[in-house]
């Protein structure tokens, strides 16, 4: 289980990336993320919704209620154009952090 702060920080790019694959509702998102992470990322799923709301206020995603065939209506989320750009930015940011860490963790890292 990841520390809470790291989960909180990672949740945003993860949600952006997940939604980039297509619109989804809340529970669906948790399912997708759990599946893709193979259970290595676990968090209080309730935390998801405040983050989604914030992203919505920032204009990265929009939400809409949609009736479902099987049961009650569901609230779906989907990326906006701004959100699509944000996916790229997040990707670049996290990749650069990732690369730095990879280099640092080489067995005999040298700085010269």
């Amino acid at each position, binding site marked *: 289980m990841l520390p809470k702060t790291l989960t909180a920080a990672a949740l945003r790019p993860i949600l952006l990336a997940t939604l980039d694959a297509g619109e989804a509702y*809340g529970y669906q998102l948790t399912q997708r993320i759990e599946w893709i992470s193979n259970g290595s990322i676990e968090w*209080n799923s*309730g*935390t998801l919704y*405040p983050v989604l709301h*914030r992203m919505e206020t920032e204009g990265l995603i929009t939400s809409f209620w949609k009736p479902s065939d099987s049961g009650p209506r569901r609230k779906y989320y989907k990326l906006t154009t701004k959100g699509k750009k944000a996916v790229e930015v997040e990707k670049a940011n996290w990749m650069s952090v990732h690369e730095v860490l990879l280099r640092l963790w080489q067995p005999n890292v040298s700085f010269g």
Partner: protein
Amino acid sequence: MSKNQTSKKSFDLDVALDTWRSFFKYRPSFFTDDMEELELHLREHIQHLIQAGYSEEEAFREATRKLGGVADLGEDFEKVYWRKIKFRGQLMAEVLLQISLVRNYITTALRNLVKYKAYSALNISGLVVGLTAAFLVFLWIDGEMAVDAFHENADRLYQVKINASGDEGTSTWSNAPAPLADALETGFPEIEASILSLPIRASLRKEDRASREVGYFASPAFFEAYTFPLIAGDAATALAQPGNVVLSERTVEKLFGPDWQTNDAVLGASVSLDNWQSNGGVLGNAVRIEANKELIIAGVFANTPEESSMQFDFVLPVQEAMNTFGHLSSWGPRWFNLMVLLDEQADANALGDKLQGVLTANDPSAVDHALILQPYLETYLNDAFEDGRPAGGRVQRLYLLGLVGLAILLIACINFTNLLTARSSQRASEIAVRKVVGAAPSSLVQQFLGESIVTSVIAALGAVVLIALVLPVFGTVTGMQLSLGDVPVGSWLVFAAITVGTGLVAGFYPALVLSSTNVTRIIRGNSGGLQQGRLGVRQALVIVQFSISVFLIVGTLTVHDQLDYMRAKDLGMDAGNVVSVRIEGDLGEQYEAFRTQLERMPTVASVTRSSEHPLAVANMNSNVVWEGKLDTEQVLFKVLHADDDFAETMKLRLVEGRFHDDAIDRGQRNYVVNEEAVRTLGLEQPIGYPFALGYEVDGPGPGIGKIVGVVEDFHTGSLSEERIGPLVMGLVDGQENFILVRFAPGQAAAGMIDLQAVYSEFNAGYPFEAAYLDDKSEDFYANQQVVEVLSRSFALIAIVLACLGLLGLAAFTVQQRTMEIGIRKVLGASSPHIMYVLSKELIVLVMASLVVALPLAWFAMDSWLSSFAYRIDINVLTMLLAAALSIGIAALTVGMQAAKATGLRPTVLLKR
């Protein structure tokens, strides 16, 4: 399987979900939308888990765990939502919730106040007085800080002062030579203007109306640099022309009538100026010119506002002073106040550095005389200098009174704190119930602070009424005229802040104590735990209160003793029953006839003339010669010229030789000196010793003169400011300024009427003004009298407040120990013994405060007294009196409560 069966029976998912939902119901951070979404999430997850083989109950537990608890979720949602809450009107809900909380505080506070009426009265009346004192002090300090701030250029005006360094350190002079103004203005581009001013007194006359006023000679830029707006005339040119005068509105009204504005003949009209007098320069060179000088009115200025440190009614061009006293335009005499107006970009510090040597460069005799700049706004409050740097002055009184105001407020707060904590046991069950139903300590703290703020707000309302009542009295004492309606909004905000602050300070400790009480102990009936262990703090607070009171009592007694001492000290002459009249108009010429007529009156004992006010001799002269004087020797003499009957009128006491006799001494250089002069010059045989005022020696006549008499030292100045120095007396010869009239014993009132009648006969057209010489000493000690009145009132308030607090504590002790008293009585204890037992603890506290306060008070008062030229020593008796007073009052307070209890029959006590 059987386990599953049983749980299935007892577990109902819908009920469980309802319960889960209800937890979120009272969290304002969730909206219905959110709740729906969360519940859907939860249901779907549960469904999935059941499909995966979980029981309903297991699935519910797992899904809710996964979703997160109420507290965590609420917090996360709140963070995101605050903005939305505003928009969705939820803010209103939030506000309503807070209002209902505040309403609850108010209700509880009021209920408690009503329930314990006596305590509430003590608390509130204490706070009323404390808040009143604090606010009055604030108003006074605020008024003092606002002095001179109304000048638009206030932050660009600087006073030029001179730091003169010598063997005895650096002294700072506020007066400068006239040519320095031009030198500064032309030599330094950052100086926009330089303004000389020199105070004068004169009578202004317009035909048969005259008015005696104080005014200034001032540079042409005066009305542009300062903000004294002209109602008529041109500020830029009004003072440019010698022969002009600018008058205050009030003076114009006196001379030209109330309708002067409709009759535009005022500008350009002429008034005459008579009997100028100027006390310029540090050495008090008094100059008087007997002349009717015609002046053209070139402007009228609005009356000087109250918050101006300069109060004057006319201004003359400074050139007029130069024309009249030719030597003033040289670098020698330093008579003028010199102010510079800097341009907006100027850096005063940098300029100050550049200015330092200017005086020495222009006046070679002014070695080690450096110029310094003091911001104009600081000159009023920081008027004392030490070693060339500002060293307080008036501002110290501000600090002092500010501290006293705070001290009073502190005493009131302590009363509140002590009474509330002492009473806490009575509220123990209320607290316990609140705690049991789930009040967190923080919300209890909030509640108690809320209550104490409510109490102090109630007190504040009372304080406003009290302030309105005492403001006029306060104004008379401090010389600050203010009515409740004049108090600006900003000051009321400060008052509100003081009120809330007081509530917080007073309620802080009780809130902590009350909120941290142990519920189980209370419920078991052991509420005593509330006070035990807290007594230390309460005792300390009582000691603080009484220390402040004792300190103020000692202060009051000492100030009073010192003032008494100065008022009653033998002045070396008898100034009682003597009035002074200024010589002006025809009085000078017709003095002999005036005197003859007066002395015929049975109400008048004697009449004489002098150059100076006998109680305020300002003429200092170092130009004195005597046989054997060394070139390097300089002795500063006070010089007093008087008629030969001066000694008789003032009842001076002769030590040896004789007083002047007009028949022998007229035209002779014969002098009477005081004992201090004899001591200073070291004369063994003073009578006949060759002596003279230096400037007379070079004049016509018989060269050096001699001492013919020695008079006992008499005071010619404020006892608080100057010690008696050498003094020389000669016969008046044109320097007479005052006529002194001694009334026959017991005839003062009738004498005054006779004097006025004779005066009007000789000097019609001049307002009759006769002042008792004694009034001068009232002037001298006016400041100290303010301190006396204020310290007396504040000491009284402090002791009353401290006693109110003690009364409350005593009443509380008695109430707590009724049972004990009853048992003691049954067992045969005498009433005095019970009173002793009850009072002991509190009286010990008061004694402890004596130990704290007396040394502090002694030290503080000794340092206050050290600023007086003539001072008392602190009396051990004063200390004892203060000690006895505080113990006595405290014992009386506590004893009354104890007596009330011991007077009751044991059965009554035990039944309670």
